[in-house]
């Protein structure tokens, strides 16, 4: 049964156009994001593992070696079932260090460009047979459908279309770490197509050819040799093939690219740990029914292509075409991804180290075109390999050759993850030994260049032994040479960065840059000015750092970020070499300020991966850190060079300097006055220093300093404690001021008492004048003298009374007193102020209102309140004193027309030492005393401001005191003639 050329072309091109369309729609974001980023798409994309060898060649293996065909599926399934052991750690390393291929991973781990170049060349050499298999599968299958088509023509046409697709959708971003969503979606579509094709063919074989499950059982019972053949004992050492496919699942360039380079979410890889084995199980399950159906139908002339032959024999064109499309899917998917992956490896490890970027080119565009040219070269190389070498061998021969070669990278991957002592020399020697055994034992005999007695038509028996020997040689040489020639210091650091559950130790290297411009200048000769600026800006943006001058710690962070980003662009070796000249040699001091901070940052990002004792220790670290961070006292630790290691939140509040801006900075580089204060104290031998005064933003602040030496820690530094004393100092000063005022008061009272005697004498003398003369002028003068002496006496008495207030033991003797008279007396005292009060005090208090109280204390209350009202009021304004009476209490309202009290001060008015007056004019003790006195009188005080809400001014003080019960019967206290009662 032949097909028209046009039908085949239409079908083949139509299918490839479908792929183009899927990729184009994805890149243009025409498909829903949920679909594009669905974990199922990622799992299906990993199905690229199932190549044409798995689609066609596997039937040859199944026919020849029975269940041995399962080995390829089981090996890859084992790798994914054990994903947390190998795949997830590789994903974390590649993501953290922006590594885009296995060559990048090895070059990063062994800190060697030679390792990367060797891995790339070996990978290319090993992948050519693999890609050749795919070309051969299509070149062989098309002539089966139409004998007029030559294999060569089919191969050329296929390679051309696939190269076009790869260039269009596989080289879209300059950075190798950017995702190619279109490519991944197209590959996932291909995986789905090949799975469905094989399942449909298997379903038809089971139900139509073998007459269903019961028919299959009957057929197998009639042909027990078929089951026997399926279970035929394999040759010795076949298990090593399982290990080869285990390695291929993550070592082959296309698998590495899809699993680790395309930035799939970690969650997708976890789903793939069972999703891909399920995918492979379904593919494997389809093989026996198709094989038996082909045997039953006698379509077994060429077992490798029996899936196509079955349709031909049964005269079912749709079945043949379905098989062709499935094979086309399997072949094209792997070629596309493998070519992209090889191109990125060749770019980083072969082209860029050799070729200088031409001047006056756009770097990103130049890089893309280089990669596109490499893709074309790889496609051409694959075709040439097929044309001159590949077509001479069966699919499973070439497959075996390639898979055993990929196995040689497994020891390298395992030591990268699990053995930090492995060295670059060990790796190079091990890979060299493994590939030498492979070439001498398998490659050269297959090519006929070396005679070993191997039957080229049946390489398997010999191949398993060679695989085992090469793997053992590789591993033994790697271990032996690594032990004999250990790695350098930077190699060990990279090894620790790659270890499972291990944190990369911060480097002891310093860096000689002051600002981001230094980085730009360093990158400019290699990348060009625009690209250099863009990369530095991008790294600054990712770290949220400002443009301009950088702290030492930020310089190191920027360097690390730049190296990561450039690693995605140029590869890890090139990126490291580009930035290395900025480094300064490590100094002898082991423990550095930046180490602490970088370690902290890494632990912050790493905490979810810690387990067991490490997690508990991390919890303990966090607890201690939080304790120090939240201490209500400033804490700062310094290393031996006086670099700041720790700067807690309280210190941030004191200084206004953030922790990020101070860590790693030398003490003398802090802004003044902190540098002077802390450096001076750190330099002295004294462990304590009390109340150092500094000026901050125009205000004086006091700090006590304490320190302890950290001689028994790795940092060999000191810890400084900085305690703010400003409030204590201010309070002490106010108390001293109050004490001075009190002394003056007592002194004034003494003086007043002493003045009383001579004034009494003057008054007596003046009164005697009346008896000694009758001259009207003299008598009038005498009366005036007596009046003035009374006035002096009244003032002196008032002063003495006022001086007696302030007794802290509370009102000693409560007696009925007339509130009106008390307020009159207070008004009188207030008006004696030497500054002169220019307000009008209006006493509207009920003249008969009596309360129970201590006259002296209440005088102090009203004098204070009236003084405050007067201070706040404009000249010639009224200050009203009103009263309200109800059954049980009396309210006295003192209302002024002043500026009022800001709302934020209202709650603090009764706090000691709180004052809004100018320094020296108020002690802040008046209102607290008033409050105390009123509460001692079982009353309350309230301040309302503004009193006049319409004009938004004035303050009203409302004092509520218990009303004297039965006040009507209380007698008016005897007056002293000066209006004072009590």
């Amino acid at each position, binding site marked *: 049964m032949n097909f028209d050329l046009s039908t085949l072309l239409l079908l083949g091109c139509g299918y490839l156009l479908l792929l183009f369309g899927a990729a184009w729609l994805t890149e243009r974001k025409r498909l829903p994001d949920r679909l594009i980023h669905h974990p199922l798409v990622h799992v299906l994309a990993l199905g690229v593992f199932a190549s044409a060898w798995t689609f066609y060649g596997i039937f040859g293996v199944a026919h020849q070696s029975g269940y041995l065909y399962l080995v390829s599926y089981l090996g890859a399934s084992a790798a994914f*079932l054990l994903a947390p052991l190998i795949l997830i750690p590789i994903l974390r390393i590649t993501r953290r260090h922006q590594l885009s291929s296995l060559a990048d991973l090895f070059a990063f781990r062994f800190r060697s460009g030679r390792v990367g170049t060797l891995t790339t060349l070996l990978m290319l050499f090993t992948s050519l047979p693999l890609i050749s298999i795919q070309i051969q599968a299509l070149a062989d299958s098309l002539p089966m459908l139409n004998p007029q088509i030559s294999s060569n023509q089919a191969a050329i046409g296929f390679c051309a279309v696939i190269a076009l697709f790869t260039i269009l959708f596989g080289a879209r971003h300059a950075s190798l770490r950017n995702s190619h969503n279109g490519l991944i979606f197209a590959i996932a579509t291909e995986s789905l197509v090949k799975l469905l094709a094989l399942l449909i063919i298997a379903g038809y074989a089971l139900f139509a050819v073998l007459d269903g499950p019961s028919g299959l059982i009957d057929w197998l019972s009639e042909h027990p040799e078929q089951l026997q053949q399926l*279970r035929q004992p394999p040759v010795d050492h076949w*298990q090593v093939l*399982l290990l080869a496919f*285990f390695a291929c699942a993550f070592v082959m360039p296309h698998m590495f690219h899809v699993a680790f380079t395309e930035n799939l979410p970690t969650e997708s890889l976890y789903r793939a740990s069972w999703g891909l*084995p399920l995918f492979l199980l379904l593919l494997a399950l389809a093989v026996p029914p198709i094989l038996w159906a082909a045997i039953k139908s006698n379509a077994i002339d060429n077992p490798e292509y029996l899936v196509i032959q079955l349709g031909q024999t049964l005269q079912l064109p749709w079945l043949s075409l379905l098989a062709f499309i499935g094979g086309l899917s399997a072949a094209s998917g792997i070629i596309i991804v493998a070519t992209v992956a090889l191109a990125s490896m060749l770019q980083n490890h072969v082209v860029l180290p050799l070729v200088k970027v031409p001047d006056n080119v756009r770097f990103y565009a130049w890089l893309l075109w280089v990669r596109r040219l490499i893709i074309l070269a790889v496609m051409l190389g694959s075709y040439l390999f097929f044309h001159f070498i590949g077509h001479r061998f069966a699919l499973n021969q070439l497959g075996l050759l390639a898979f055993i070669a990929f196995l040689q990278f497994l020891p390298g991957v395992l030591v990268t993850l699990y053995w930090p002592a492995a060295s670059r020399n060990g790796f190079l020697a091990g890979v060299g030994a493994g590939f030498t055994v492979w070439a001498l034992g398998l490659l050269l005999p297959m090519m006929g260049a070396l005679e070993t007695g191997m039957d080229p038509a049946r390489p398997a028996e010999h191949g398993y032994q060679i695989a085992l020997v090469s793997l053992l040689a590789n591993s033994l040489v790697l271990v032996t040479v690594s032990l004999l020639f250990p790695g350098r210091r930077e190699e060990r650091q990279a090894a620790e960065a790659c270890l499972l559950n291990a944190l990369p130790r911060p480097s002891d290297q310093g860096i000689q840059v002051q600002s981001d411009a230094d980085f730009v200048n360093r990158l400019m000769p290699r990348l060009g000015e625009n690209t250099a600026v863009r990369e530095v800006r991008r790294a600054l943006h990712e770290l949220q750092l400002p443009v301009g001058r950088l702290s030492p710690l930020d310089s190191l962070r920027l360097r690390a970020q730049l190296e990561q980003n450039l690693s995605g662009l140029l590869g890890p070796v090139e990126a490291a070499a580009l930035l290395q000249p900025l480094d300064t040699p490590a100094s002898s001091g082991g423990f550095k300020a930046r180490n602490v901070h970088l370690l902290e940052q890494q632990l912050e990002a790493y905490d979810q991966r810690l387990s067991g004792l490490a997690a508990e220790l991390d919890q303990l670290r966090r607890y201690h850190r939080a304790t120090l961070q939240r201490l209500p006292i400033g804490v700062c630790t310094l290393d031996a060079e006086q670099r700041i290691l720790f700067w807690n939140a309280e210190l941030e509040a004191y200084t206004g300097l953030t922790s990020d801006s101070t860590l790693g900075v030398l003490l003398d580089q802090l802004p003044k006055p902190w540098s002077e204060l802390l450096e001076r104290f750190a330099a002295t031998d004294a462990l304590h220093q009390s109340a150092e005064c500094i000026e901050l933003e125009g205000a004086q602040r006091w700090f006590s300093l304490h320190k302890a030496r950290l001689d028994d820690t790795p940092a060999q530094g000191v810890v400084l404690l900085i305690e703010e004393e400003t409030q204590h100092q201010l309070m002490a000063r106010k108390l001293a001021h109050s004490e001075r005022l009190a002394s003056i008061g007592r002194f004034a009272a003494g003086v007043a008492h002493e003045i009383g005697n001579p004034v009494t004498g003057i008054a007596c003398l003046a009164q005697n004048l009346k008896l000694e003369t009758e001259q009207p002028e003299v008598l009038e003068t005498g009366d005036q003298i007596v009046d003035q002496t009374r006035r002096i006496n009244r003032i002196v008495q008032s002063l003495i009374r006022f001086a007696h207030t302030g007794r802290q033991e509370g009102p000693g003797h409560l007696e009925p007193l007339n509130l009106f008279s008390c307020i009159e007396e207070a008004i009188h005292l207030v008006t004696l102020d030497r500054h002169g009060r220019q307000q009008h005090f209006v006493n509207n208090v009920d003249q008969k209102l009596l309360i129970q109280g201590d006259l002296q204390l209440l005088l102090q209350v009203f004098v204070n309140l009236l003084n405050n009202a007067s201070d706040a009021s404009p000249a010639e304004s009224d200050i009203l004193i009103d009263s309200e009476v109800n059954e049980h209490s009396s309210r006295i309202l003192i209302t002024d027309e002043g500026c009022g009290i800001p709302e934020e001060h209202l709650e603090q008015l009764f706090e000691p030492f709180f004052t809004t007056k100018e320094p020296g004019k108020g002690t802040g003790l008046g209102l607290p005393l008033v409050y105390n006195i009123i509460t001692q009188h079982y009353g309350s005080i309230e301040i309302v401001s503004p009193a006049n809400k319409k004009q938004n001014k004035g303050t009203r003080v409302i004092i509520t005191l218990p009303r004297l019960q039965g006040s009507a019967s209380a007698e008016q206290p005897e007056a002293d003639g000066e209006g004072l009662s009590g």
Partner: protein
Amino acid sequence: MIRHRLLLLTLAALVLIPELIDWWLFSDHHWSAPFLVWALLILITAAIEWRQRHHEL
């Protein structure tokens, strides 16, 4: 450390105990037995992954 040992044990089982795989694939079971064992392994892995995902959430 536990993962490390598990990996080594698994690799040892694959390489050093070939009889185990021989028995699994080439013994005189029903022809579908290898697939059933394989499906069981997948089921266990999926259950572990599901539990881990929901535990983390």
